[in-house]
């Protein structure tokens, strides 16, 4: 209640025909425990205030007491849909600090895993978007296809979601003998299913009417708010870390950075759909060429980073993920900061929803693709 009063008192007063609605923490479309204080006039959204922190887990504080391999396993739990990329960010950061060069095999496998989890994440995003829009069937089609990727993860990494596959200096295990065959099967299968996604949702007149021209986020706003990932690229913000500061095997593959200048919900949707095609093409380029070699560099039992500051950026499915380690030479970091993409993306929401309807708020939020533990950390 106090916050509601605060809004009434501090910001401009509620007019007679305006009212406040709490969306969340338990609401079907917030995808977790996010609460938004929505100021409405009839169906029209005037203003929203996101309130986060319902599942704040203090990961940054916990990391100050953990060793680097242990930190990696915690990053699974932030953006659980991009677990591989989060793992990789910390692993790369530690490797850069220790100046360890990992074998090519590791780079290739890491890139393949990144793209697989990007695909899995985008699939889940697609089906959840459909569900938020009221097309419930998309949910099951998306999950059906995602299941194949999760099976690949389970076979090679031993877990489906919290994989913890990267370690400083390499990988936890070598790939499973079936890995390449399964990935190839998946690529073949998913190439036939992606057009169905288009037929079911992208082409649908109701869907296009509902998303086109909704939720405008201009380029300057996107940069100012730090909106990255597919959401930022749909505003014309060229922010793909894979292109600008390539890591792992990304310098070796050819792919396009999908940029859309329409800045609306439909653009954010189409950027992600096109990114799925790009991910498939990256997988096709890499999967047959995994070089032979070691799957991990032999590292010391207790990793101690040299004194200094180390930053590593990677591109997760939601945008730019950063790890900032300040080390004082001990086995655990002095301060560790995660720059999570969802955090910046969420707060751009307010500038996008003004004047739209409640249903648009749900659609816009869906195309931002928020994962709440990523925001709360």
């Amino acid at each position, binding site marked *: 209640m106090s916050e509601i009063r605060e809004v009434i008192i501090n910001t401009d007063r509620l007019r007679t025909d305006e009212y406040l609605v709490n969306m969340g923490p338990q609401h079907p479309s917030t995808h977790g425990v996010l609460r938004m204080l929505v100021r409405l006039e009839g*169906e029209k959204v005037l203003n929203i205030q996101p309130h986060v922190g319902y599942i704040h887990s203090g990961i940054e504080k916990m990391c100050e007491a953990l060793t680097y391999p242990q930190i990696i396993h915690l990053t699974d739990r932030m953006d659980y849909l991009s677990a591989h990329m989060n793992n990789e960010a910390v692993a790369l950061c530690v490797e850069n600090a220790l100046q360890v060069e990992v074998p090519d095999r590791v780079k290739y496998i890491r890139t393949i895993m990144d793209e697989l989890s990007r695909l899995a994440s985008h699939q889940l995003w697609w089906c959840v978007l459909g569900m938020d829009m009221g097309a419930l*069937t998309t949910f099951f089609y998306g999950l059906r296809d995602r299941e194949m990727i999760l099976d690949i993860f389970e076979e090679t990494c031993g877990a489906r979601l919290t994989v913890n596959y990267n370690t400083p200096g390499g990988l936890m295990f070598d790939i499973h003998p079936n890995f390449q065959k399964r990935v190839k099967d998946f690529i073949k299968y998913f190439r036939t299913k992606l057009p169905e996604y288009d037929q079911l949702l992208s082409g649908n007149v*109701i869907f296009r009417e509902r998303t086109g021209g909704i939720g405008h986020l201009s380029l300057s706003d996107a940069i100012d708010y730090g909106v990255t990932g597919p959401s930022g690229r749909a505003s014309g913000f060229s922010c793909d870390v894979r292109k600008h500061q390539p890591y792992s095997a990304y310098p070796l593959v050819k792919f396009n950075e999908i940029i859309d200048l329409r800045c609306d919900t439909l653009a954010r949707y189409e950027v992600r759909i096109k990114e799925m095609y790009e991910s498939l093409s990256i997988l096709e380029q890499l999967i047959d060429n995994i070089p032979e070699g070691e799957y991990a560099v032999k590292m010391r039992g207790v990793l101690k980073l040299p004194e200094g500051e180390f930053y590593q950026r990677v591109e997760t499915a939601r945008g730019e993920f950063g790890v900032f380690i300040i080390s004082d030479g001990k086995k655990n970091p002095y301060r560790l900061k995660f720059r999570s993409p969802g955090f910046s993306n969420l707060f751009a929401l307010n500038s996008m929803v003004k004047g739209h309807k409640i249903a648009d708020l749900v659609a816009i939020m869906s195309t931002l693709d928020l994962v709440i533990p990523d925001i709360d950390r």
Partner: protein
Amino acid sequence: MAFNFYDFTNFTHNIHVGLNESFSPFAATTIEWLIVGTSYLLFVALFGLLLVYAERKVCAAFQQRLGPMRVGPWGLLQTIADFIKLLMKELIMPRKADKFLYNIAPFIVIIASFLAISVIPFAPGLQSLDFDIGVFYLTAVSSVGVIGILLAGWSSNNKYSLIGAMRSGAQILSYELSVSLSLLTMVVFAGSMQFSTIVEGQRDAWFIFSGHIPAIIAFIVFVVAGTAETNRGPFDLAEAESELTAGFHTEYSGIKFAFFFLAEYINLFIISGVATTVFLGGWMPLHFGNFESFNHVMDFIPPVVWFFMKVFGVIFIIMWFKWTFPRLRVDQILTLEWKYLLPINLANILLMALVVLTKFHF
């Protein structure tokens, strides 16, 4: 008492005569009311359960799932178990709810559905109300239900419920127009508002075939508007669960929620039943001009079976809509009605009048 699957007229007539012989006319009428009322209640409850089960299985099949499989063979008893669960649940009322309106709302919704169901002819002789203004009556009572929805949303003391109810009000009031106009098109064609006459007029060919283009347009408009009027499918704005959690029935639990739930499925049945009666020949078998042997085989299937086969066909199409399309936004739903369906409908009535005047039909 002769029992005949092909024509219930004698059967119902015999009951009527038998009751009048044994009791005074007043008592006989009362007993008839009770029998009819009970049979409708039973029918609605059982058919509602069946429809819920069918919806789950159909939606599961669309989504490559199996649907309920645990309770009973193929999960057949699942909805009964759910119904028992709903009966046993606690009835919770929000603290500042308007008690009287809150309690009465589910009944208004379900009574409106019962009123509407009474004019639908299931088979020859199996129709409780056969007005000469049947179509008019149907359009009138089917719009009463929205009052219950509005009351439910208003009295719940919940903003989500209120938004849902207001959406539903705007939606049903507009789509009522399209439903009535598309029915009116067929009334122009049939030349009667009485359901039995309308069905009788389709003995040789169903209206959707004999009325060709305008009838098909009217059918499509009717199915779309009917879907919207039952708050289903892509038009389920009133209970859009990703936006409004559960819309107007957010605060209802237990049997009161079950009433809303049941009413939704009865409405689905009514819309399909009316579509069947007016466009698809009601309980009339499928006849093709001069194919005598084919027509004879079709006659062999009892009219009740014909009626329910067609009803399930229409219900399946409406379910197909629901499980395929994304939901519309509230302004788009009104755009669809006022800028698309209504002009099409008006033009269609003119076209139908022309067709009738020029006798350019089969």
